[in-house]
């Protein structure tokens, strides 16, 4: 048996098999890793954000104004005064496993948003500008 030619024949088939297996396993890895699983976490977070916005937008105010949100966004001074109570209200309203950030025309309330997490967003229009509620899982 000629040493070189026999080795050549064997390794050619082995290489073909290896390439084939690699191709098939590549497709498999695609299925196993990259099929998006719509577990509904973003939809759920959007629903939480929307609900929190609605609750704020229809809640009665602490002092004056039509609703809690219109009271908070009435002026910078009112925002500064109501900031802590708005934060308390959100902590009470949202489930305990959620963190939040509310962007108002006068500044944010809540926590800094970490990068790379799924975030649910809802925007409520008020007379003084939009208020955006963002929530994410702690």
């Amino acid at each position, binding site marked *: 048996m000629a040493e070189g030619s026999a080795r050549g024949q064997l390794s050619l088939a082995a290489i073909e098999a290896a390439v084939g297996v690699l191709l098939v396993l590549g497709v498999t890895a695609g299925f196993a890793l990259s099929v998006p699983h*719509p577990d509904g976490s973003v939809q759920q977070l959007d629903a939480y954000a929307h609900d929190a916005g609605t609750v704020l937008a229809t809640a*009665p105010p602490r002092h004056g104004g039509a609703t809690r949100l219109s009271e908070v966004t009435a002026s910078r001074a009112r925002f500064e005064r109501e900031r802590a109570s708005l934060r308390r209200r959100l902590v009470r*309203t949202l489930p305990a496993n959620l963190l939040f950030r509310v962007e108002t025309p006068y500044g944010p309330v809540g926590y800094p948003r970490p990068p790379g997490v799924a975030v649910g967003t809802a925007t409520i229009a008020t007379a003084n500008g939009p208020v955006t509620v963002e929530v994410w899982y702690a």
Partner: protein
Amino acid sequence: MTAAEVRGAGRRPSEQRGQANLLAVGVALLLVTGALGVAVAFSDGAFAGVDRTAGDRRLADSLAARVVASDGPLAARENVLRRDAVENLTPASFEDAFPAARGHAVRVALDGHTLVRTGDATGGETVRRIVLVARRQSRTYAPAFGAGVDLTLPRRTGALDLVVRPPPGTVVRTVRADGRIVLRDPDGLRGAYRVRVSRYRTTTVAVDANGSLPAGSVRVTAHPSVTEKATLAVTVDG
């Protein structure tokens, strides 16, 4: 010595090479077939996993959206549920109010406490919403009214019930809420009335009469709602 080598013993080197190649092709086919089998199993699992609960999730999502909608059967306004409606849910009334739930196993819970359960919903897909549960209170005020003496209600309310029983000789012509005339009768108001007022401002009630109105001659009943937050969970399991 393998079978291929035995068969190829008396032949030329080129044929031996061919036999060895056949063995390698057999092994290669086995490997590729095995990999294909693994691939098919994985893709089958992936498709099954994606398809299995999409319908349940959609139904749970739409049911939860319907429960919190402002014109929903249980809602007082958007994201606010009426406590009496929520507590009196039965499987039959739930399916009447939410026809989409018919034929499915649905569980509706408020803060982990099951309100209604149709079918055998244990696992399945759950959608959670933040709601307020409102309980109606009734507060009656019967102060003395007069010129410049108004009643400012401490809590906001959407409707007022008024009972006007002026003393003899006194005619109550108008009742104002926040300066707006809500009741008027030049010949005199008497009896029970229901008045809608804005929920978005504090209501002040003023009564115009041609004489003094002692305490109790105009009784104002307000219905402020007391809300508490809760988490609504709608679970659909097939």
